[in-house]
C-alpha cells in the first residue's frame, strides 16, 4: 500500500501523462467500438462541453474571474461564423477562425470593464448582464439573425459521414485546448494566476500585473470558446439565441466545472462527460429526469465539495503525503 502512495507522489507527472494517453486512445478508438451514431453524437457533445468548461475553468478556476457571461463568447463564435458562411458563402473552415477571433474581441470588451470590479458577485453579475445583452441583440435583429426562430441551413463542415468526421475534429479541438490549458497553468503566468486567485492583495504586492494577465487569459479562453462555438454552429446547423447565448448554457458549464472540480485540469472534463452523459442516459427516467439530475448535482456538491476530481485528487495526495510523513518519522526514530 505505502509503496503505491510513494509511487503516486514520486511519479505524479508520469501517472498523469499515462492516464491522459490512455484516455486519448480510448476516445480515438470509440467510433470503431461504438456503432450507434447517437452515442458518437453524445460523445461529441461531451467533448464540446469539455472545451467550454476547460476554457471557463481557466478563467474562473485559475484567474478567479467568475464570468457568468461566458456563453456569450461561445454564442458569438457560433453566430459570427454561421452568418459569414451563410451570407458570404465562405467555407466554414475559414469562418470558424473568424468566429473565434470575433469571440476573442468580445472577450476583451467584456474583460476590460469587469476588471474594475474586485468582488466576485459583482464580476459574476456584470458579466452575466453583458452576456444577456449580447443575447438580446441576437434575438432583436431578426432581419440578420432570424431571431428566436434561429439560423438554420448553416453550411456543414463535412458532406458525408458527418458524425464520425466531426467526432475526430472535435477530438482534435479538445486535445489542442487541453494542451493550451496545461501550458498556461504550468507557465509562470499560471503560477501568478494561482496567486491572484488566492489573494488579490498578495499578488498585487508580488508585483503581478493583474489587469494584463487577466485580459490575456480571458482572451485565450474566449478564443477557445469561440472556436468551439463555431464548430457547434457548423455541426448542429441550427442556432437560436436562447440555446447558444442563453443562461441555461451558463448554468450547465458552471455546474459541470464545479461538479468535476474547479481549479483542476481533469475536473472540468470529468464534469462535462459525467453531466452530459448522465443527462442523456437519464432519459429513461422520462419526466423524473431533471429532478434526478438536480439531485445528483446537490448530492455531489454536498459530499464532494471540491467536485469529483478535486476531492479524489486531494484524497490521494493527502493520503500519500501522510504515509510519507509517517515513514519519515519512522526513519527519524530509527
Amino acid at each position, binding site marked *: 500500500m505505502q509503496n503505491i502512495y510513494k509511487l503516486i507522489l514520486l511519479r505524479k507527472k508520469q501517472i498523469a501523462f499515462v492516464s491522459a494517453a490512455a484516455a486519448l486512445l480510448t476516445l480515438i478508438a470509440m467510433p470503431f467500438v461504438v456503432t450507434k451514431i*447517437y452515442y458518437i453524437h453524445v460523445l461529441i457533445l461531451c467533448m464540446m462541453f469539455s472545451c467550454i468548461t476547460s476554457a471557463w475553468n481557466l478563467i474562473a478556476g485559475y484567474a478567479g474571474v467568475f464570468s457568468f457571461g461566458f456563453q456569450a463568447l461561445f454564442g458569438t463564435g457560433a453566430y459570427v461564423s454561421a452568418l459569414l458562411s451563410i451570407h458570404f458563402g465562405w467555407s466554414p473552415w475559414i469562418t470558424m477562425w473568424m468566429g473565434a477571433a470575433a469571440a476573442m474581441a468580445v472577450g476583451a470588451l467584456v474583460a476590460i470593464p469587469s476588471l474594475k470590479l474586485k468582488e466576485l458577485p459583482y464580476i459574476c453579475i456584470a458579466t452575466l448582464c453583458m452576456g444577456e445583452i449580447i443575447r438580446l441583440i441576437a434575438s*432583436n435583429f431578426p432581419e440578420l439573425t432570424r431571431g428566436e426562430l434561429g439560423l438554420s441551413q448553416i453550411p456543414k463542415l463535412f458532406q458525408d459521414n458527418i458524425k464520425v468526421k466531426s467526432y475526430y475534429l472535435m477530438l482534435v479541438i479538445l486535445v489542442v485546448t487541453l494542451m493550451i490549458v496545461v501550458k498556461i497553468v504550468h507557465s509562470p503566468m499560471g503560477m501568478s494566476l494561482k496567486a491572484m486567485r488566492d489573494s488579490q492583495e498578495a499578488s498585487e504586492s508580488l508585483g503581478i500585473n493583474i489587469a494584463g494577465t487577466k485580459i490575456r487569459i480571458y482572451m485565450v479562453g474566449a478564443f477557445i470558446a469561440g472556436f468551439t462555438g463555431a464548430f457547434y454552429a457548423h455541426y448542429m446547423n*441550427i442556432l*437560436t439565441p436562447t440555446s447558444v447565448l442563453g443562461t441555461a448554457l451558463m448554468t450547465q458549464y458552471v455546474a459541470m466545472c464545479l461538479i468535476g472540480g474547479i481549479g483542476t485540469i481533469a475536473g472540468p472534463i470529468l464534469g462535462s462527460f459525467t453531466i452530459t452523459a*448522465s443527462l442523456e*442516459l437519464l432519459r429513461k427516467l422520462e419526466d423524473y*429526469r431533471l429532478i434526478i439530475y438536480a439531485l445528483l448535482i446537490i448530492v455531489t456538491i454536498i459530499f464532494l465539495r471540491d467536485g469529483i476530481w478535486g476531492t479524489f485528487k486531494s*484524497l490521494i495526495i493527502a493520503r500519500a503525503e501522510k504515509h510519507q510523513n509517517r515513514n519519515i518519522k519512522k526513519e527519524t526514530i530509527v
Partner: protein
Amino acid sequence: MMKKVTALCLLLTLTASLCGGCAGSVATSSGTSAESTGTSTTQSSPGSEQKTTAGGIIKLGAVLPLSGASAESGIACQQGLELAVAEINQNGGIEMNGDTYQLKLYCEDDGGSPDQSVSVATKLIEMDEVSVVYSSCLSSCALAIMDICDQYPDVLFTTIECTSDNFSTIIAQNTERYVNFYKPYYNSSDYGAAFGELIADLSEKGVIDFTNKTVAYIVEDTDAGRSCVKACEAALEKFCGGSTTVAAEVVTQGSTDFYSQINKFKALNPDVVMTFFVPLNSGVAYTKQVDEIGSDWVDIAFVYPLKAGFVEQTGAACEGLFWLPMQVDFWNNEECAAFADKVYEMFPNAGLNAMHLSSYLGVYMVSDAITQAGTNNARDGLAKTYGAMDYQTINGRYVFKEDHTAIASPEHLVISAAQVQNGEYKVVWPANFAYAEPVAQK
C-alpha cells in the same frame, strides 16, 4: 475522510449503474421490436427486425418541450398522442399488408431548445428505431429537426401545429431534400390574412371603429409572434387599404407585466390592439391589466384564449374579446366536445387546447397513411402516400400543398374568429361558419 471516500464510491457506482441500466434497457427496447402480436404471421422472421416491418409493432417518436417555458404545449401534445395511440391499440392496432400492428409511442423532452431537439430526434431514430417522428410543436425545434431529415430517408417527419412560414419557403426551394418532412398545419401568414379580413369585415359591419387605421401589437418573442406582425400588416394593406402600426411591442415569452405597454398605448390611442401569446399566463395578465387600466381600443387576441381556463381566470375582463384562430370549437361542435370528454377521461386534469386534437389527428393521419401505403418506411412510399392524402377530420380537411404544408381555406382548414359573449365562445367569422353576430366591444 472516510465519508468522502464512501460518497465518491457511491457516486461512481451510481453513474456506472445508470450507464449499465440504460445500455441494458436499450438492448431490451431493440429486443421488443422483434416481439410479435399473435395476428402477424410470416413477418416475424429474425431478418425482419428492420424498420420496414417491426414485426407487430410500429414505433412512433415525438420530440416535445416537456419541460421549460413551453411545457404546457408540449405536454398537451403528448397527451393527444398517447390518447390516439391507446385508442388505436384498443381497437386492435393498425392494418398493414393484411397484418395488424400495435403502435408504440416514444416521447422525448427537448426542453424547447432546437439543438436538444436534434439530439433527441437522433436518439429516437437511432436507439428506439422509430419509423415516424413527430417533430415538435415549436417552429424553431421543428426547423432544426427538419435539417437532419435527409439523413434518415426511411423515417417520416411530421410537425404538430407549427405555424412558421419558413417551412414552406425552405421546402419549396428544395422539395426532394425534404421529401419525408410534412407540416400538417397552416402558416402564420394565413393567420395574418384572416386578421386582415376580419378587421375589414367588422369595420364594415360597424362593429369596430377602424377609421384611423392605427394598430398596436404586443407579440411574444417567438418566430410565430414576430412574423405574425408582418403578416397582419400585409393583410391590412390588402383588405383595408393600409394601416399605420403605432407600436409593435415584443415581449419575452411568458412575461406577465404589461402595465407599461398598455399605458403607452393609451397615449398612442390605436383603433385596434393585436396580442399574440402562446402561454396562457401572458394572455390572462394582459386581459386583466387592460381591464384594470381601462382602454378605448378594440382588443383582438391570437391563440391564447383557446387555452383551458382563460375565461375562468379572466372573468368579466375578457367579455367581448375577439380572437382567432378558433382552431377547435370544443363548445358547439359535438364531435370536438366528445373528443374533449375523451381527453378529460384519460387525463382528468389536462389543460385542454387545440394541440390535443392536432396531435391526436396526427396519429390517425399517419396510421391511415401506413395502411394505405402498406409500409411504415418513408422511402418505400409512406412519405408519398402521406403527402398525397386528403384527410377529412372532425376539425376540417387536411390536404398538403406542394410545399408540404396543409392548405388553409374554408373548404380545408378554416381559420375562424370567435368572440367572448356572456363568458362563452361564439364563432362570429367567417360568415358561412358563424353562428353568432359580432357585437361591439364594451
